[in-house]
């Protein structure tokens, strides 16, 4: 089975203070990018998975998120799986 590449997006939960997003937004405004609003800064994690079915892999990556990659108190996450072409 060909390998899979997992992409995990970890984003600040709505309503939770996101100092980084706020500061980046302010800095963008200072630089003249006035069109920008609602900036959030999160994490983007990529990893290679050995050969496994898509469903199994999805379940495993979700477990990784629940246990380590995201903190449910302040963060949401989203997982994408794509074929690993490298």
């Amino acid at each position, binding site marked *: 089975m060909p390998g899979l590449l997992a992409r995990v997006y970890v984003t600040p*939960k709505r309503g939770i203070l996101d*100092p980084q997003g*706020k*500061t980046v937004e302010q800095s963008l405004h200072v630089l003249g990018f006035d069109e920008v609003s609602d900036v959030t800064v999160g994490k983007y994690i990529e990893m290679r998975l050995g050969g496994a079915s898509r469903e199994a892999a999805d379940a495993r990556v979700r477990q990784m998120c629940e246990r380590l990659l995201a*903190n449910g108190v302040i963060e949401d996450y989203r997982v994408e799986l794509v074929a690993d072409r490298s």
Partner: protein
Amino acid sequence: MRWGVVTFPGSNDDAQALRVVERVLGDEAIALWHKDVDLRGADCVILPGGFSYGDYLRCGAMAKFSPIMAAVVAHARRGGLVLGICNGFQILCEAGLLPGALVRNRSLSFVCDLVIARIETTATPFTASCGRGSLLTLPIKHGEGCYVADETTLAELEARDQVVFRYADAAGRVGPEANPNGSLGNIAGVCSAERNVLGLMPHPEYATERLVGGEDGLAVFRSVQSWLRDGGRSRGDEPRVQAP
């Protein structure tokens, strides 16, 4: 009494905590390694400051899986005392022993400075010998000390008298000017619902000698000592619990 101090990979303030226990308090200090599985009879466990696992991903995220943490959790469930300072506070939140989370300072910069921590409740083993409203001058040194929690959690913390320290100015006023990192409600430290687990960002262990940092931090350690000495009877005030 016996204090256990856990060393995680990347702990930096473990040596200072051990020194305070032995040389300043004159108590027994037990150095605990993160791969240990028991607390070797420690009455109070300190999770020290530093950068466990480099603070990579999130502060405290990886340390919570250390083998020692199972023992710390069990100790806490039994009502044992746990004191998390700075990175230790972050680990306790990550491990679910304390509510909320610590995110990057609003300035996005690391900040090392002296702050004033106002004692909000004496109904904890860590503040039982202090006066409510009294002010401690303590150092902070962190990049991610901004305390956040959702509104429900915050309301609960207030209602159950779990906010133990707030950042204040020299006159004891709590306000944005006195807030070094953007913490909601100027919160500098909280305790668990059972009151035996405390996490705080300021460093009482770095304020225990006149020569270096002053002595205000001793109040916290002395409270624990007397609380344990008389078997938890010197409870200060009762928690000022509001009807839900």
